[in-house]
């Protein structure tokens, strides 16, 4: 079985002055917190805004 999520979220914007909250110093938008092939459990964060 498979679950596909498709959703809209704010785009991470490049903000050199802000503390890095995602890869590449992006801030304020959605960023993933998983890797491909990673095992996850219900309730674990896939990403954050």
């Amino acid at each position, binding site marked *: 079985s498979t679950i596909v999520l498709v959703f809209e979220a704010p785009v991470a914007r490049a903000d050199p002055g802000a503390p890095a909250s995602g890869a590449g110093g992006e801030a304020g938008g959605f960023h993933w917190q998983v890797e491909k092939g990673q095992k996850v459990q*219900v309730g674990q964060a896939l990403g954050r805004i």
Partner: protein
Amino acid sequence: LRTALRNTKVQWYQIPVGLGIGFLGLVQFYKVSSREKEAQEQAARGGEPESRPKKRPRIRPDGPWQVQVMSTLPLKALSRLWGRFNELTIPYYLRVPGFKLYSWVFGVKIHEASEDDLHVYPNLASFFYRQLKPGVRPLDPDPHALLSPADGVVLQFGQIEGGDIEQVKGMTYNIDALLGETTPSTSRSSSGLSTPSDNQARHGEKTLTAEEELVKSDEEFARVNGISYTLPNLLSGPAMAQPHEEATDQSVKPSPVSVSEVRADLALGEKPWYSLLSHESSKTALYYAVVYLSPGDYHRFHSPTNWVVERRRHFAGELYSVSPYLQRTLPGLFTLNERVVLLGRWRYGFFSFVPVGATNVGSIVVNFDRELRTNSLTTDTAADRAAEEAAARGEPYSGFAEATYEAASPVLHGHALRRGEEMGGFQLG
């Protein structure tokens, strides 16, 4: 056994003539019944009864040669047979060793199951759809986190570019093919739920032309990357409710806690989310994630965030395996399989949740939609009929049956789900 086989005398008897006559009579009776039923259905649809019943051609999915080859296999029948087999009651004393063997093979964490005594599960189907002990899956405390809906493996994730989702590296499929076209003019509700077009007909409204739909869409819809959304009424309250009829029986109502919590969360945005959805806006984008559940995983799924489900689309499709191997080798697998597309919105805009069925699993259950029937012979027949009717009208068949959940909550215009709340699951067969 060898002695018995060797020494037992084999004696042949003629089949009684009466038995042969009875068999032929049964076949003839079946043929006549089928013919009469076909004629009645034809008359009910308003057409002239055909003198000789014609077998309805099975709708085959388009796709590459792998799909055509696999389409020849009775995968749904196998799935149903597998489901029936797994519903057979296992003898009491075989349950514990049987389930422990299954757990050893597929890596089930038995100690997490709500029932410590494996004797409680009468068959594999109930063990497969087991519940977890309270507290074994704590939710991420960050309210801005998007949670995993199920136990499994993250196969793919990313941002949708140009309306395409990447199944595996270099293999993409279109988001419209996954979720369905935005105008459900040819959809039919196999479960008896109302469709938008049905609603219009009941209210005596004329069917909108494509141009009128476009004008209407400017008023009521916003469009980003090829997906349209109804504008939210939740921020303005019930006064802005759209005057159309909704699905009559959505049985499980959302709890007041869910409604209030989801409403509060949606209202937390600094400004209405639809203000971000203008054509020129690049503040939001569409993202996707694919989570694969292996046979040993906990097979219920939960809400990844606070959101409102506005409608569901059931694509009867087929039931191919969704194993990582087939995902690598079968292009557009998710757009061919049976799936339930739940469409709605969350704090940041559009949100959809798509459980995709598989041969070895079969049925998709949505807790708040008891009229939904997946992996069902009735649904298949209804889908075939809808495809035929669409072809007769000269229209393309959208391939799904749609229902709306607006009646579930007059304030939110949909079914409210809290983060972590159980939504449904996958069952065997």
